[in-house]
């Protein structure tokens, strides 16, 4: 009887080293991180394909917002209940990477595409379009004049839309 009481006080504090390994994983941190990475990576393969999500990437920003919300909830849990949840170290790292992804995304979206030459000497509306003769995909030479004069299927040609693009080089 007299032995048991001191022995009991020698038992390590339940919130000590052992408890650290038993703290629950902080899932919102990882979910938020994965959502943020998806927000970053999904623009080119998915959202850039549709003009409504391409011109202003609101869908990606919305996904980023959801990701950061999860990270916020995870961080709050990690710091408010540090004995209960893990994530005091991983949380700030994952959040920093996610925020960096958002910043880089904004930079590429709003800055990188704008360094285009002004094309100030491009022909204007009402002017004659400069003629040209270029090879089509079968190697046949095609001029603007021939495009305008040759009927397309059974319809008379009313005009041509020239779409200049960067190409896939």
């Amino acid at each position, binding site marked *: 009887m007299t032995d048991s009481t001191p022995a009991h006080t020698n038992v390590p504090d339940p919130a000590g080293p052992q408890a650290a390994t038993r703290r629950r994983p902080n899932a919102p941190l990882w979910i938020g991180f994965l959502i943020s990475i998806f927000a970053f990576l999904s623009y080119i393969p998915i959202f850039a394909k549709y003009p409504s999500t391409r011109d202003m990437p609101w869908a990606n920003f919305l996904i980023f917002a959801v990701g950061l919300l999860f990270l916020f909830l995870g961080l709050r849990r990690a710091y408010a209940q540090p004995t209960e949840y893990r994530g005091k170290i991983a949380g700030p790292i994952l959040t920093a990477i996610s925020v960096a992804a958002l910043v880089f995304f904004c930079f590429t979206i709003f800055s990188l595409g704008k360094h285009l030459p002004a*094309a100030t000497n491009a022909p204007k509306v009402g002017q004659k379009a400069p003629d040209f003769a270029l090879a089509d995909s079968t190697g046949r030479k095609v001029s603007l004049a021939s495009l305008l004069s040759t009927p397309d299927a059974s319809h008379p040609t009313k*005009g041509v839309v020239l779409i200049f693009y960067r*190409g896939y080089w």
Partner: protein
Amino acid sequence: MQDFEKLGVKPVAISVDSPSESQDLSRKAGYTYTFLSDPNTDAIRAYDLLHKGAGVSGHDIARPAEFLIDSTGTIRWINLTGDLRIRARPEQILKAAGTL
């Protein structure tokens, strides 16, 4: 594409890509309209659309732009984007083409 045909307006895509590259692209993406190859940037320069050194290996390519030309060869509508990502939407071009 059928909407353009109905209006009697032919889409023509121009880039520095070679005819075989354009053929590959058309086949993979199912494009049926005309692709023209301008490796020496003759037409691209005639329309002042040269983007110097912007190609992957530093060669000159075209900046994106769209021109609607009527049957008399007169330019009726132009879209010169200020941002690579933002090109004319098909419905914008169709709207302009509908006025021919």
